[in-house]
């Protein structure tokens, strides 16, 4: 495909930016949601791999940008694995327990997209109180 104007270039840039924006790190004022999935041995044994895959699948289905999925080590709530923690700028982190495939999709569709908390699954609402 040829580029014949600045608009053509802009289109390619917007498409490409989606593929590389996770390399931009630590910029102030960036509205980025971070999903941390507990992937220690206990998490994996409890099915965190399925959870992680479901999160990614739902994100790509809904074409959500400014979101990062990060695998982390043990979060300390082994009784409620798989654990997903959501960090959003300016808000307290929210921790969900027993997140299976369905709950993972709910997290994306409700919490991330509509800002509705999944009250039944929250195990503790701030990290500091743990």
């Amino acid at each position, binding site marked *: 495909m040829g*580029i014949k104007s600045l608009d053509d270039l802009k289109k*390619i840039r917007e498409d490409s930016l989606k593929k590389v924006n996770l390399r931009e790190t630590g910029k102030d004022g960036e509205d980025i949601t971070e999903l941390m999935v507990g992937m220690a041995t206990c998490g*994996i044994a409890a099915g965190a791999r399925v959870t992680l895959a479901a999160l990614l699948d739902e994100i790509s289905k809904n074409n959500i940008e400014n979101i990062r999925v990060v695998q982390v080590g043990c979060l300390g709530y082994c009784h409620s694995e798989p654990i997903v923690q959501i960090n959003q700028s300016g808000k307290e982190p929210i921790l969900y327990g027993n997140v299976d495939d369905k709950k993972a999709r709910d997290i994306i569709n409700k919490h991330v997209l509509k800002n509705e908390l999944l009250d039944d699954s929250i195990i503790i609402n701030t990290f500091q109180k743990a």
Partner: protein
Amino acid sequence: MDKIRSHIMVCGGTGCVASHSEDLISALKSELITAGYDQEISVIKTGCFGFCGQGPIVKIHPDNVFYVQVTPNDAEEIVKEHIVKGRTVHRLLFEEPELKGKLETHDDMAFYKKQYRIALRNCGMINPENIDEYIAFRGYEALGKVLTEMTPEDVFYEIKESGLRGRGGGGFPTGLKWELTSKSPGTEKYIICNADEGDPGAFMDRSILEGDPHSVLEAMVIGGYATGAHQGSIYIRAEYPLAIKRLTVAMDQARDYGLIGKDIFGSGFDFDIIIKLGAGAFVCGEETALIHSVEGLRGEPTKKPPFPSESGYKGKPTTVNNVETFANICPIILNGSQWFKNIGTETSKGTKVFAIAGNVNNVGLVEVPMGTTLREIIFDIGAGIQDGKGFKAVQTGGPSGGVITSVDLDTPIDYESLKNIGSMMGSGGMIVMNDKTCMVNIAKFYLEFTQDESCGKCTSCRIGTKRMFEILTKITNGEGTMEDLEHLDALARMIKDTALCGLGQTAPNPVLSTMNYFHDEYLEHVKNKYCRAGTCKALSKYSIIADKCIGCTACARACPVKCIDGKVKEVHVIDQSKCISCGACFDACKFDAVLKP
């Protein structure tokens, strides 16, 4: 599932490729497939991170974790621990020598803290073989802006205003160079990118071409538009195969998008680029010699004037700019000359890339604002001298520059200040030397290089550098006389004044500057037949201190030429006529009884 959630960036610069980064990439890919993560994690081969001394480098996004000295054997652990379980592999993190602690993120490293990356902005950030990634980071936007919104006059005015000067070493204002070519009469004009990087130890241009080839191509098209040229050539030495490969890939991709070729951005402006391979002669970095070589003639300089801006390639007005100069163009167009002007010193704007090499802890590629001091570069970014030794001197400007001693370490770097202390900016090679370096030998090393690289056209350079090299060899062999020192000095000044081109005119600089700052070392070599660094084999005599020797025979057993005599529990003696000054006895002795010259 096509959401990629993490990028593993692996350095694909020549330095890291030499330490098996390509094997590492295949190992990571196959480990990801084994773990079933290959659809969500991508492995990207990128350009030079600059931290070459610790390569191969791996950086993981978005975690911002920076691993050093990663081997293909580490791939399994990285995937199993970091990717699958989210645990940082601590043993692969970089340890700051002074802090004694491991650093997880790249921004914390002293090596990166004082850097400001303009020319290297995309190196380590993008996959150089993917034009879309370059475009994602504002690539080709400057070209679009230039072709659709600016006149050629606007372009060279903007570059002139920015204060950008040639990064190849000369420091000629780039905007003015463009204006001169633009105003030369005629419709057939050319633009040439000088990628004939030849200083020993310098690899700035190679890293830019390998890590971000599009930044140079885009700037060449902009330069063509500003000067009225429709054809560009990249003159690159054949010994840079990786840079050539990436350039070729980049040119094909840019051509597919119509970003080079006919009617670029629908503006009616045509521009094409070809690659011209050079055989790697140092003299071809000089622009007139370079132009002759591009023409297919012998790479010999001719006198200036006429300058290439009047009569260059095929006798037509030609602009020759260095790779790093080009790499600065697009950010200036995008951010404006005022932005660029605010970086740097009064006379030298922007940043400069340096290749730090030699006896320094962090060997690598750094980009700092003009006005940064040598001390900051060597001791903060470079983390000081290896093995806790002392600093003696630093050579900037390669074989054309001179040594700078500790007295001048706080000089803010710019074109003028380096000239004032007897060296020069050069293209950016920076060789750090510790207190065990013989300065006469260093001068000899550079003269051996220049006499070898002299094209032979003018007598003063052809014969003069050869004679200087012979005198220096004589001195380091312990056969020098006081008369030799006088001849050396006179010869150096004569060559400086009479040589035809920059190579010859600057070739005596290493001699003049070492004779100026380290005159006592020259005298020691000539009068006392003594080399304090122990580098000049003919002048370094090892001996044994009788009081300390306990007669353990360790030295005698280590000596490869069997020149150490002595019985068990008796003092040993070195036969200095047979000694080859290898230092094996010094290393073998546990009682500090061997005196190193």
